[in-house]
């Protein structure tokens, strides 16, 4: 049998399908050529226009809808990327198949054989296909559109289709960091976002770990009842409790001011005055952090309880014989065991709270007061984005720029953690 030249076949497949024909795979060649032709036709009929629309974002106000053009253009870019991947695969396939033939291996030639080999080898692709399609439309496309939107002047003055949107480069980022009014807002909101994330997440983690350790001591009776009670904040949907808390912390009619503080004053030597939870920024923030502690500790509690029960009792007995104190046992046995398993989960608590929209918005609407740019005193970045895109003077472009900043922060932190997690696994 004559030897094929894999390299030459690869060059032939610059027109997809040709290399496959040369390899004797008529079925595959037809399909590849068909895909290629389909893409070319799509590109001529629809794609070229879509890409052009992405560049111009429309030329006639009232007729061209800039945002639709952007979405279609982005979709076309994604389609093109997928085609490029297919094209590369086609080149490699022509080469590898020729090598296989040279080694005397069987390859599927007819449609029937190809069908069989797809059922066998293509099974994994078939099973993950739905996941990819869904992700492209609900994650990848919106994320890319947001990315592009950050570089446009999409705002209340430019609402398509009545008026056109145009590319403005880094103007939104420039406004955010250089324009004094927005910079002040961004700094205030970002500062509180960081404080909020650190305090709330740390509180729920410490509370969760401490409660798990305390509630897991051998002598405790009624563990089951305590266990159920401590799970309640997790079991009840968070938005229900947050709204309830916003009533409970109400300045004039809420239970904290009407009941709890007078009750505490019975026992305490000092008199606590009524606190303006909803109208004083400081106390709103304190309330938010406490509520998140309440909401978030059960998850940590359950996780840590599971870990504690898996630690061998022998370790503790051995430590006791060696004369270790309770604190030493905790520091050298319990804590490392907890961190070994739960450290990644702990970090996700921080990234979660960084974007914890519900509690901020539902408790006090991001208020009280105003720190400029439409943001209230307890607004974090994500709720500021929400306010920038709603209301009477929406600033979509600016909001997208903030979204990019948020995403960059979250992704950087997560990647760092992932690397650490990998290190955990290698041990």
């Amino acid at each position: 049998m004559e030897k094929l030249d894999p390299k030459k076949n690869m060059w032939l497949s610059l027109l997809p399908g040709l290399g496959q024909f040369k390899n004797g795979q008529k079925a595959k060649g037809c399909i590849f050529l068909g895909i290629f032709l389909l893409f070319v036709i799509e590109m001529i009929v629809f794609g070229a226009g879509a890409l052009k629309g992405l560049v111009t974002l429309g030329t006639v106000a009232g007729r061209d809808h800039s945002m639709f053009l952007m979405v279609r253009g982005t979709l076309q870019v994604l389609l093109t990327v997928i085609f490029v991947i297919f094209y590369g695969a086609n080149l490699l396939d022509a080469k590898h198949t020729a090598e296989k033939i040279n080694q005397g291996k069987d390859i599927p030639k007819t449609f029937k054989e190809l069908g069989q080999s797809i059922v066998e080898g293509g099974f994994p692709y078939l099973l993950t296909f739905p996941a990819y399609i869904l992700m492209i439309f609900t994650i990848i496309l919106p994320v890319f559109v947001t990315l592009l939107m950050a570089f446009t002047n999409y705002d209340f003055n430019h609402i398509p289709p009545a008026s056109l949107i145009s590319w403005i480069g880094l103007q939104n980022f420039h406004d955010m960091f250089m324009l004094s009014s927005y910079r002040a807002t961004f700094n205030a909101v970002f500062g509180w976002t960081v404080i909020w994330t650190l305090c709330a997440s740390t509180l729920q983690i410490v509370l969760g770990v401490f409660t798990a350790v305390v509630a897991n001591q051998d002598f405790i009776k009624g563990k089951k009842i305590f266990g159920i009670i401590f799970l309640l904040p997790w079991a009840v949907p968070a938005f229900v409790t947050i709204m309830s808390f916003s009533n409970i912390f109400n300045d004039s009619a809420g239970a904290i001011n009407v009941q709890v503080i007078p009750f505490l004053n019975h026992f305490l030597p000092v008199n606590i005055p009524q606190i303006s939870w909803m109208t004083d920024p400081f106390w709103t923030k304190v309330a938010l952090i406490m509520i998140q502690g309440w909401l978030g500790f059960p998850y940590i509690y359950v996780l840590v309880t599971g870990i504690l029960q898996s630690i061998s009792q022998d370790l503790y007995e051995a430590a006791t014989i060696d004369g270790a104190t309770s604190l030493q046992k905790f520091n050298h046995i319990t804590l490392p065991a907890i961190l070994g398993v739960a450290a990644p989960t702990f970090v996700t608590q921080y990234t979660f709270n960084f974007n914890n929209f519900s509690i901020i918005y539902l408790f006090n609407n991001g208020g009280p007061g105003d720190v400029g740019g439409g943001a209230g005193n307890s607004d974090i970045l994500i709720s500021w984005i929400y306010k920038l895109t709603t209301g009477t003077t929406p600033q979509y472009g600016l909001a997208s720029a903030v979204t990019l900043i948020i995403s960059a922060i979250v992704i950087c932190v997560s990647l760092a953690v992932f690397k650490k997690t990998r290190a955990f696994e290698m041990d």
Partner: protein
Amino acid sequence: MAEQIKIKKAGSIKRSRFLKHFLTYLYLVILAVIIIYPLLITTMTAFKRSDVVAFTLDFSGPWTLNNFKELFTNTLYGTWYGNTLVISIFTMIIQVAVITLAGYTYSRYNFVGKKWSLTFFLVVQMVPTMAALTAYYVLGMLLGGLDHDWFLTLIYIGGGIPMNTWLMKGYFDTVPYDFDESAKLDGAGNFTIFWKIVMPLVKPMIAVQALWAFMGPFGDYMTARYLLREESNLTVAVGLQEFISDPKDQQVALFAAGAILIALPICALFFFLQRYFVTGLTAGGAKG
């Protein structure tokens, strides 16, 4: 003398142990009270007269079921609840199906591009998608999905896929490969191995995933508020907030009644599936 010291020492050990027990129980009881107190307030307010203003723990009556009647006759609560149930159920079924297939594939098969695409899942999972609100809005406008349940359902399904596929893969990995191999030797096909051998062993994780997927739409406020406009299309989280959103006219009793009807079934489901949680959590947590 030595005897006396011994007794004294034993006494102090006893005393310190008593102190430890006392403090432990004190902590647990106080924490339990802090947890139950707000929940009890909401529960009780649901059975108060609808003109109640104070949101406090108050055992003095009068008690009434009027709020619940009011909810279903004079407000759109029933419709909102129905909307949310439809969205939740579809989200749960489709998402669990998709991530189970994908998780199984990534755990069991080797194929070209596997490592690459897994990394892709991982990075995508880090993107805070809900921040892409405006993009969803434009997309909804383009596809005619604004103010429609199916569009919101799609977003809920898609958003959970990358993260949950990873968790599923991690859990599938805990099922030994030997099971597959011996089944293969017995002549079982791909599908039989998946459905009859591996699936029964990952039921706990599927239960957990189903619960999470089901609870998601109930708990989401931001996306639903942004994409749904018509009163009769709202989900229950958005609708419920309207009862208390006007500071001058807060209907706390009505809100409380609505809150209870959401919290009860979800709580029940939660505790029903709770035994699976610890295994699911630690397995998932260990893998990240």
